[in-house]
């Protein structure tokens, strides 16, 4: 038995992981999510903005990270729409426009049809250039994003009239999967403005792997940090509670419970990982005692 475990084919582990993810999804296992102070701070930062605030939403992710970041992007757009903020969508990733289009279709057009494009929200699309785009947007936003996704010049869009630089936004919400993303927004846009009278508030949502990289910036430069699907589930829960407070008895659609749904397999997979680590060490020490280390 020890020999078998020492030379265990990794495909058994793959199978175990596959079942650990598939079974909770199929059985629709869900667990209650209690928001941590970090998620609450992110929620409060966005919720406490004045009515009609201008919010810059940078969706810097692609289909590969959509399973982890998609639910948080959905909740963020929903929260901004519920609060009546004016939303400006941009992206620095080539596949980002599709992500933005998906969220606009799923949230704004589906549940907030009264919001008018060009007056309440605008999709300014993708710009190539990574940090150069951020630096240029800091000094001349309209030159950086000269037209929206429909090809209309920003000068003809009513809600772009008051925008000159990134300082004209009340809050930056960056959902990022890598480079360029949250870290670059903090380095090039948020930090230089930190000493000004009205600093740009910033909330970043990122993948689990990026979260440790961004923690040094919280809370000094970042006002909120939503890390991984866990953070997304907490934030989603807070937004759903907010909706429940405003309209008691409202049924929450499934699309606004995706993050919580995905925490089911997360739990089982993490428990499996812990078990595998323990098993691996048991095998190692048993083998060492017998003098048969693999």
């Amino acid at each position: 038995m020890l020999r078998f475990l020492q030379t265990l084919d990794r495909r058994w582990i793959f199978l175990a992981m596959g079942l650990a993810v598939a079974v909770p999804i199929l059985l629709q296992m869900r667990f209650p999510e209690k928001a941590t102070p970090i998620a609450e701070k992110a929620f409060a930062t966005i919720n406490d903005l004045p009515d009609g605030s201008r919010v810059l939403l940078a969706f810097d992710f692609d289909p590969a990270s959509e399973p982890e970041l998609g639910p948080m992007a959905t909740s963020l757009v929903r929260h901004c729409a519920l609060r009546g903020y004016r939303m400006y969508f941009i992206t620095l990733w080539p596949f980002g426009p599709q992500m933005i289009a998906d969220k606009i279709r799923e949230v704004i057009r589906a549940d907030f049809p009264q919001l008018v494009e060009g007056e309440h929200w605008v999709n300014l699309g993708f710009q190539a250039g990574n940090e150069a785009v951020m630096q240029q947007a800091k000094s001349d936003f309209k030159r950086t994003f000269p037209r929206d996704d429909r090809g209309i010049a920003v000068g003809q869009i009513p809600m772009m009239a008051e925008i000159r630089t990134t300082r004209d936004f009340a809050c930056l919400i960056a959902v990022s999967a890598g480079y360029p993303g949250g870290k670059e927004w903090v380095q090039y846009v948020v930090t230089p403005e930190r000493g000004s009278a009205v600093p740009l508030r910033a909330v970043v949502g990122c993948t689990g792997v990026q979260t440790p990289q961004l923690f040094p910036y919280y809370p000094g430069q970042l006002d909120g940090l939503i890390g991984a699907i866990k953070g997304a589930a907490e934030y989603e829960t807070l937004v759903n509670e907010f909706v429940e407070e405003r309209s008691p008895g409202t049924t929450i659609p499934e699309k606004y419970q995706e993050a919580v749904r995905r925490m089911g397999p997360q739990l089982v997979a993490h428990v499996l990982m812990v078990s595998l680590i323990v098993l691996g060490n048991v095998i190692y020490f048993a083998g060492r005692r017998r003098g048969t280390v693999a």
Partner: protein
Amino acid sequence: MIGRRTSWSGTWRGAVAIARPTVPAAIVLNLFIPLLAFGVATAHAKAREVAHATAQDSAAGAAERSARSAPMPPPLAPVDVRVADLPLDEGGAVLVMWKVPPEAPAGSIASFVIRRSMTQAEAASQRLERRKASFEAELKRLETQGVAPEQARTQAAAHAQREVPSPVPGAPEPLQWIDASEVPAAAPGAEMTTVVSSLDPAQEYQFMVVSRSADATEAGAAPSAAVRGEPGLFLGKRIYLLGWILFISGSVIGFILVARGGRPMRIRRLAALEAVDEAVGRATEMGRSVLFLPGIQDMDNVQTIAGITVLSRVAKTVAEYDATIEVPTARSLTMQASREAVQASYMQAGRLESFNPDSVSYITDEQFGFVAYVGGRMVREKPAACFYMGCFFAESLILAETGNSIGAIQIAGTAESSQLPFFVAACDYTLIGEEFFAASAYLSGEPDQLGSIKGQDVGKALAIAVIVVASLALAVQAIVPQWGIGSVAAFIRSTLTS
């Protein structure tokens, strides 16, 4: 696993400097850590006390103020209003200065409102908004009265045009004002200053400072002269950042000059780079290829350049051993640079005829498309040695695990801190962060390059010194606030966040 070693054991001991430290790190750490822990714990306790006391004070103050409220005389207009372009800025900011009237009764002025003139574009935009609102309101009224839609629209448009007329061409437009900011009033006779920013550097603005009392009564001074917020010659707020840069760059250049002067520069052994020859030799013996990935980013990323620098050294070793190397790239420019680097290395080794240009090829920009190709290639071709030197993201674990599954010796180097754990777990040798950037200097052995590493360590020593000083200052401030040491930490913070 051959010679499997991670940098964990050596890292925490030698993490402070690659070059030999001039100050024993252990002594500094043994003094610093307990002091820091004590300071932090005390600071937390003190902060809780201060927050509680502040809350009590403000509640008491508000109660006292409301109890003393009585009818106030109207406010007096501010005096001596001056405006000037804010110097040494990036433009779009103006300094507004004024004086609180000395004869103003105490408490008569609650705040000062700073107003600026609208630009023509802003005025036109505001006219458009007002006309639109007037049109909508009139249209609704006419529709309720049963007027036909087309006629209602025409009448509403005419009404809106009458209510909000367009300016007469050629005639000067009356100035319109926007509230730019509001600042609480200081004591009578005090000089006050505020900065109005987010202005258009190409436009001229006039400013007006208005005194406002608690009951919103206002008294304004005459508008100021027009001023433009032009960009300065230099960004004054970044002077400290420039200082840091000059210091660190100066130390790098200084040590390069010292190295050129003949002083030997020793750096500690980097196991990952010592293993390059071993890895290539293994590939030659097994008759299998060497796989080198210079990251998935473009040439504007310094990690890619560092990776190509290492590639040129590895390719030279491969050429000398007469092995084969494959370099798939995820960016076209990187492909070009890598190809030239490999070709030059083969030429240096005197094996130009063995160089195959197609061994350096472009795959795709798409991250997972690239890793799918590389993973498949590794499983089919089974390279004996895999080098991952550059900027990697989520694909790092897939690459490293695939390499592990085929039994290849793997040497990785990246400055992406989020991917380091995956490489450390799955690769035989890993260059962590700055070790990766030192690789080029290490492999070349040139005094110039080794000197630059020493200069970089001066920067690190500076960073440590700043952390220690600021932490001590905050700890002392928490224990004995009357000493006023906290201003030291505040000053350091202001220079670092400029």
